């Protein structure tokens, strides 16, 4: 996703001299080509994220389209009030980009795990929050955000994510992508949960359950209609996110569901436990520790489907 992002941004910077990139002294082996090709559109703010967001705001209010780039929580929580007051309140054309969403920086420890960012940032007014599901979505999201004026947060994975979309899907901010249609249950995924989610749908299909898969790349504003359609048209919604179960996609979906009249689909939120990781390991290892792997999520989903079918009989 990181490569898809930076390659797209390089193309955008070629096309439009207003497009700028400010990094917080991160992006080794990623940003060099941009910096070299576009010296007037590139700034390294140093290890100073509060100032980075202030700079970005000042530049955006002077007509630039500014992307800030850092990793994990440095891009967001470290400078949260600057994002709120400077970027969002002024509707400044700043796109805050974080690499390493979720547990991508597994072995680096809890400081580097971005597991509450979606919850916190989707609470901010005016901020579009986007977590692409694969490199194709990352590319489309980067372009879409550059073209839409206003504040945004782009949460990326790291590197080497599986491509889910064989063909380029139609991508609109705030509109879920139906990756697979299905009539029994709906799986709603955001960000890096997408490959796991399509694998889960394939597993369910093998066991006779037809699962709709929605890639909810935009967390805010949420595609409420897609959730309502799923709630009315299918009997179970499972949300999947590499993020705490508190406050993220699952919560956003729950907010919509809770206000719908019955009968409506029930909801199961799958995500990361609301704890710090006090031991480290690889990305895959940590996801497994949270039960965020195909084995565990299919067990959970199979059981829920069984319950539904039991009720139906």
């Amino acid at each position: 996703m990181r490569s898809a992002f930076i390659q797209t941004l390089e193309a955008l910077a070629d096309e439009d001299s207003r497009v700028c990139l400010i990094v917080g002294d991160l992006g080794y082996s990623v940003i060099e080509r941009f910096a070299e090709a576009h010296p007037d559109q590139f700034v390294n703010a140093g290890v100073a994220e509060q100032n980075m967001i202030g700079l970005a705001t000042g530049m955006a209010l002077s007509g630039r389209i500014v992307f800030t780039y850092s990793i994990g929580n440095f891009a967001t929580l470290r400078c949260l009030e600057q994002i709120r007051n400077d970027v969002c309140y002024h509707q400044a054309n700043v796109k805050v980009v974080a690499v390493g969403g979720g547990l991508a920086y597994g072995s680096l420890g809890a400081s580097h795990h971005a597991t509450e960012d979606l919850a916190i940032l989707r609470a901010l007014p005016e901020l579009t929050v986007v977590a692409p599901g694969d490199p194709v979505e990352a590319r489309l999201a980067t372009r879409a955000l550059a073209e839409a004026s206003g504040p945004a947060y782009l949460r990326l994975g790291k590197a080497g994510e599986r491509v889910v979309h064989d063909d380029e899907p139609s991508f609109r901010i705030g509109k879920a992508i139906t990756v697979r249609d299905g009539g029994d249950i709906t799986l709603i995924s955001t960000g890096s949960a997408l490959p796991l989610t399509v694998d889960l749908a394939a597993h369910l299909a093998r066991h006779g359950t037809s699962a709709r898969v929605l890639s909810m790349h935009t967390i805010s504003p949420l595609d409420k209609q897609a959730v309502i359609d799923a709630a009315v048209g299918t009997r179970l919604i499972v949300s999947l996110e590499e993020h705490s179960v508190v406050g993220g996609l699952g919560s956003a979906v729950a907010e919509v569901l809770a206000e719908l009249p019955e009968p409506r689909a029930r909801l199961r939120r799958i995500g990361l436990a609301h704890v710090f990781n006090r031991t480290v390991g690889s990305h895959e290892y940590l996801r497994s520790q949270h039960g965020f792997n195909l084995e565990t999520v299919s067990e959970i989903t199979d059981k829920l489907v069984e319950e539904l079918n039991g009720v139906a009989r």
Partner: protein
Amino acid sequence: MIDRDMQAVGRDDYGNLPTALDDAQLRELARAIRVESVRMIHRARSSHLGSCLSMADIMAVLYGCIMRFRPADPTWADRDRLIVSKGHAAAATYATLAEAGFMPRKRLEEFGRDSSVFAGHVTHGVPGVEVSTGSLGHGLPIATGMALAARRSRAAWRVFAVLSDGELDEGSNWEAFMFAAHHGLDNLTAVIDYNGIQSLDTVEKTLRLEPLRAKLESFGWRVLDVDGHDVRALRQALDRATASTGRPTAVIARTIKGKGVRFMEGKVLWHYRPPDDAEMAAAVDELGAGE
């Protein structure tokens, strides 16, 4: 009255102030800002009068003879930008903008009222305000970004930020001080309203700033140290600042919190306390009498 004075020297086609008010006119502008600040804060039962009074001369000089702007066209692309980072001094900021012609003075009555955009901290939406502040330590980074954008665009407009002394407790300012000097942003000027009093106590007793000049110089800034109530000294310093080459300039403006109203001068109390009717009358009376 200031209006007549300004009429006398005339405005340009854009309603802009004359290129430079003279010292007497600047003092009169500062006096008008002080009187309006007292009235506004009294009317709104608001706070931060001491901070407004300490800043009045700085604002008068910036708008009276330093900055380029067009009141009838507040977003004129080539205007100089001012970020009032000490956003709590909102009354003085709005009063200055009214005196500078961005809006009728009558609009200052909206300050702090229900459904008003005239918030108790400097807020965009008020004509002439570039950026909302109120949380300290935000203004200088934004001003620095603007200065960088101007530099990269080879534009001639300049950026000013007015900071408080207590505000320098915020580390984000020092990130910006480092950045602006590293990038040689000589189109950026920070004016520090150094009245020596912050929210609960003196700066000295809260978090010592001294040696401030040496700190700023060691960060790579050119530093000018002036009496922040001497309009001629302020004008000379700001003229020098905008002629700077290669380095941003910090003007340390030595001020007195509550300046102009003797019973408020140098008192922590007037950071928060609004004047009652009698105090308001006494303050306006003293200010009206001039210095």
